[in-house]
């Protein structure tokens, strides 16, 4: 019998649980077998007896023996992930999917737009981009969240703002009482794209966030002159197997788990349910 079982989770220890925002936690994990992923690929995280859910790691892809996933509590599995404690045992499968074709972006001007929980895959991507930042012509980052307290990775993003190799602007949709310390902009992420000085005809835009944010950001980018094929989106679909067998995540001729989760807008724009 074939030895590889793609359904088997690898035993994994929880090293640390970090509270990022009231609804988002980052879990630092140590699998018993090394997992090497490309940034943008995803893994399936098992809570024993409860089930699995897919996440794109938010950590440095070149670290083989540890991994971080950032999880918003929205459902059965993610609620349980939020209850995990240091020392607990979970399972990991993967990596699955395509990831970002970073080599194709070398020598180009690159804009990364992140929204809300979409910062998770983006952080992993930024680690990778910063490692080879000299190889890009220009780098821009635009990020938005609902309010300052919803901002992920506050420490990292405040360091990004100071970097010389990238132009970073952060925004929040609204300010609540007690948010007086906020130094960024106020307004939707689509309102902080206009001042970007880049060659939109050849520039690459990478967008990751909630579907509604990706929809309006993509529309804005097209209006700005970006080419459909140069806009890279992270699609979210219900996934079970992660390996293109179970049928849940189909969109048109693709399985998001196998052919994505990163898609060029040109590849998916004709599907009416692309933003659902």
């Amino acid at each position: 019998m074939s030895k590889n079982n793609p359904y088997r989770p690898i035993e994994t220890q929880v090293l640390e649980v970090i509270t990022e925002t009231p609804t988002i936690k980052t879990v630092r994990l140590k699998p018993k077998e090394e997992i090497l992923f490309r940034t943008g690929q995803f893994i399936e995280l098992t809570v024993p007896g409860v089930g699995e859910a897919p996440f794109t790691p938010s950590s440095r892809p070149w670290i083989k023996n540890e991994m971080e996933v950032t999880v918003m509590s929205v459902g059965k599995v993610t609620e349980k992930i939020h209850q995990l404690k240091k020392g607990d045992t979970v399972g990991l499968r993967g990596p699955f999917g395509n990831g970002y074709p970073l080599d194709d972006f070398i020598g180009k001007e690159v804009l990364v737009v992140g929204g809300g929980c979409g910062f998770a895959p983006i952080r992993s991507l930024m680690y990778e981009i910063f490692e080879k930042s000299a190889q890009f012509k220009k780098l821009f980052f635009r990020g938005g969240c609902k309010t300052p307290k919803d901002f992920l990775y506050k420490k990292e993003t405040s360091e990004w703002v100071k970097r010389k190799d990238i132009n970073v602007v952060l925004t929040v949709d609204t300010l609540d009482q007690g948010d007086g310390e906020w130094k960024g902009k106020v307004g939707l992420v689509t309102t902080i794209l206009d001042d970007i000085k880049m060659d939109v005809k050849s520039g690459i835009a990478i967008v990751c966030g909630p579907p509604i944010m990706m929809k309006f950001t993509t529309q804005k980018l097209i209006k700005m002159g970006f080419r459909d094929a140069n806009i890279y989106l992270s699609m979210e679909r219900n996934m079970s197997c992660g390996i293109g067998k179970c049928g849940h995540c189909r969109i048109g001729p693709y399985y998001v788990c196998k052919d994505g989760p990163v898609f060029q807008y040109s590849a998916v724009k004709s599907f009416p349910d692309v933003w659902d």
Partner: protein
Amino acid sequence: MKFITNNNLFNLFGILQKDYDIFIPVKRENNRFYTRYMPQMETEGDKEISIGEVRSFEPLKIFYTRARETVAEGFSTELPKSNPKPFCIVGAKACDLKGFMIQDFVFKEGDFQDPFYIDARENNLVISADCTCTLDTCFCLALDVKPYPEKSFDLNLSQVSNGFVVEAGSQKGQGLIDANPSLFSDPMETVVTERDDQRKKVTAEVKKNLKEHGIPNQDRFEGVIEKNYESEIWGDEAKTCVECGACNTICPTCHCFLLYDQMDEKRMERLRVWDSCMIKDFATVAAGVNPRPWLWMRLRNRFEKKFDFFPKQSGTYACTGCGRCITACPAKIDIRKVLQRLVKDVQKQPV
């Protein structure tokens, strides 16, 4: 080509039983159900074995991706052993063998393979059989499937007077003939003629079905989903659907599943469970967004998968013309009528 008498066929089953669990169609009322073969079953009055005739009630996939199957136990690298003994399917029909084309594509191809499916496919024996009659719902010819197997079997049986014409379709099948020479004889010309006449007769019956129900041939399916994507057909046809998922469960090509975890005190188990794309939350994500909130969207999705996705991905329409979904549907949604409407509406559209 060989000939085997009825008695010798059961003698062959007796030999095969040492290595295989044998499943054979047994007739109850107007259906044929796969039943575990027991010695002397053929002589018991209450069990009517039906090797020829027509497709069984259940699709063949029940043996290859079972409705619930353990696919992982804890974190163990050992594969859970699901089939203690290899199995031998007797009397599978050509439409079900076409189902293998889709199931093989799903579970055997790509970067990842399903070791349980592959194990079942490699360690089983398929002794298929010609159809000797048809059901009103049979429309295999429209999908380029003949009512007699031409490939994907180890041995094929064509029922004739006093026995069967036997053909080997694999080395394993040929091996069975070679290992048991006393059970087989060379067929007389008359029985071969009888087989050919039978095949012609059943083919004509299916053709009659196609004509009576106005079922279009698959060479007219290309582009019908795309062109009818916004058609009222979907809403019309979904009106009576009760979302039971029977069409998915009974379909020889439907393959969708869910990984389901369960645990007692210490043991964690992962099951691969059949799932149904007609059920509301099939595609709903954790946060609650559903790309197909309406029943008609899910019906369209089912047809899109079968008649657009699979031909593009695997080169085969994911329908075998077995007609099981027509019989199973409590809402009388009829795949033949849907296909007829899809093809017709395409013709109506201006070029």
